[in-house]
């Protein structure tokens, strides 16, 4: 005999159960809630501070009380555009960033190539640690060490003295260039190493099968494939040099964009904010170009 079993009464759904089922049905809202906290926090903190910086650029400083006058004006931008010194400093900084990038690329490429294609796995491990080790030391210690090395009675001068030469000393752009190249070299070596490692060995064999000598293979196979990685590394060297103010302060007496901003941050905050937008714009342009060259896939 069959009897229809009475339906099992469903428990009345609790508030939490109702909420979870609703979220289950509306997965867009679920996604929004999940990411809102971390992404929102990042956006509020990061973009919020950039926004405040941006707004400050349109304010001015009262010359009498030295307090900030919160009225929108373009005065700061006019001053930056018309006064020579800001152009000179910007060009000097961009030039140094480019020089440091090229120098780092030239030095890093052979090292990365050796690491990626020639070194045995054991040597590679040791060398990668060696490349990374300077990053464990504090940035300030490295900058001050170079100050000591380049100083009048420093190691560099005593090494060059028997040859009748002398080091660049602590003035001008040369000590800044040397220090920046030293500081950012690991950031250039690693992306290039990663990029070179990705090149399949079969391509190189194919190239030599087709009659390419070592130099031709390098020029027409390896270099184009590794170029995005070089551009990826250059993002670090270029942007880090563009904004730095501690190294010019420590090893030299020239002014870079960062130094002008740092000095004005104390004395004329709106002007410093306005001038900060200049390296920001330069980096945005640089990143757009870098993306076009494929750097973001190589990172």
């Amino acid at each position, binding site marked *: 005999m069959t009897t229809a079993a009475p339906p099992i009464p469903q428990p009345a759904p609790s508030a939490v159960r109702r909420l979870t089922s609703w979220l289950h049905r509306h*997965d867009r809202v679920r996604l929004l809630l999940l990411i809102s906290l971390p992404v929102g926090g990042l956006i509020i903190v990061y973009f919020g501070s950039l926004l405040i910086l941006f707004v400050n650029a349109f304010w001015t400083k009262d*010359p*009498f*009380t*030295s307090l900030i006058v919160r009225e929108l004006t373009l005065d700061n931008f006019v001053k930056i555009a018309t006064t020579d010194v800001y152009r000179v400093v910007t060009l000097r900084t961009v030039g140094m960033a480019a020089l440091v990038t090229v120098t780092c690329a030239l030095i890093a490429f052979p090292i990365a190539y050796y690491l990626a294609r020639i070194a045995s796995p054991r040597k590679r491990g040791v060398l990668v640690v060696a490349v990374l080790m300077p990053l464990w030391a504090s940035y300030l210690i490295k900058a001050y060490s170079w100050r000591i090395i380049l100083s*009048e009675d420093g190691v560099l001068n005593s090494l060059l003295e028997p040859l009748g030469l002398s080091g660049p000393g602590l003035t001008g752009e040369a000590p800044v260039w040397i220090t920046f190249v030293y500081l950012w070299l690991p950031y250039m070596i690693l992306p290039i190493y990663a990029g070179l490692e990705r090149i399949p060995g079969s391509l190189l064999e194919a190239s030599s099968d087709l009659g390419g000598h070592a130099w031709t293979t390098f020029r027409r196979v390896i270099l184009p494939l590794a170029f995005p990685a070089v551009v990826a590394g250059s993002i670090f060297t270029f942007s880090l040099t563009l904004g730095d103010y501690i190294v010019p302060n420590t090893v030299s007496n020239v002014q870079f964009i960062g130094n002008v901003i740092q*000095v004005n941050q104390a004395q004329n905050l709106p002007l410093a904010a306005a001038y900060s937008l200049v390296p920001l714009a330069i980096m945005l342009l640089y990143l757009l170009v870098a993306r076009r060259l494929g750097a973001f896939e190589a990172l």
Partner: protein
Amino acid sequence: MSILEEGHRTMKIGRIATIAATAALVVAACSSGSTPEPSAGPTPIASLGATEGQKINVLAWPGYVEDGSYDPDVDWVTPFETETGCDVTVQTFGTSDEAYSLFTTNPEQFDVISASGDASLRLVRAGYVQPVNVDLVPNYADIFPALKDQPYNTVDGVHYGIPHGRGSNLLMRRTDQVSPAPDSWSVMFEADSPYKGKVSIYDAPVYIADAAVYLMATKPDLNIKNPYALDDTQFQAAVDLLKQQKPLVGQYWTDYLKQMDAFRAGDVSLGTTWQVITNLLQAEDTPVPVDVVKPKEGATGWSDTWMINSKTKNVDCAYAFVNHLVSPETNAAIAEWFGEAPGNSKSCALTADPNHCDIFHANDDAFWQDVWYWQTPETTCVDGRTDATCKGFDDWINAWTEIKG
């Protein structure tokens, strides 16, 4: 809608929402002001209370407030803390502009500040410091009259601080690299100086006054009466002189330790300096061969004032500490450690070196005739001229950036 498009739309909604929230945050931040209004009709406090348990944060020039952390034997803070129950923390700065910036970004952090004349008026005008009741500072009575009621510490008859001491900026040289001993700033300014790239100058816009002091002696037809009151022609002459000096400059210093490094290593042979830097170099384990002189053209200098934050919650300790710093014994100790003329006339009898006050001309008003205390230049000429407008501090700041290139 595909999942990808859905995700993009959600991201976009999220992004717009957070940007809107941020904008609201910024608008809220803009409308609420945390900077104080300049006080109208200032009146100082009338009486003091107990000091037990209060904590004060002091912003001071290096060497002014020693608590044993540089040299355990040099400490005039711990005895004060034991006696009053106050807790004192010190922070030092390199230039008046740095001090002013520290104050404006943290208006309530520092209770007491040692302000030179080029910061004191800015602090008063912006309302950051409170008027001081000198009757509540017993040691004020013994301060040298020449330091009282000066334009940088008294505004419209209201005292804004207690005078500390005064000193002159000096010309320091490496005795083994510079001879003969210079007696004029010309070795640091003239294009034919043999010390190209070996000169160390103070990295602050107020250094333009040093150029003006040199011009007062070398170009009298410019008619500069006060190096902080420069009209267009005079200012341009000072700026041109500094641009002419540029090839000589090896170091721009704000951190006194960096100047010490440079002199010790021989990176620079000449520079503008404070006596304390020379004293410290000469007192090192391997003394550095340096010597100082006040050149014949005169020099800029400083006369500092202890000021109290207008918003301090520890005003009793603040007053007690300021009184302690200008007391005969402590003022003598600071004056000897730093190398300046003390502010308290009774300190001269208490210095370890009985000739200290003579060396630093504490009683010698004639010496200070050609020392121009740091002052903030204003568009209303500070030398009293009404027929010309002078360059304000903003112009000095802009010019300094241009001079450094």
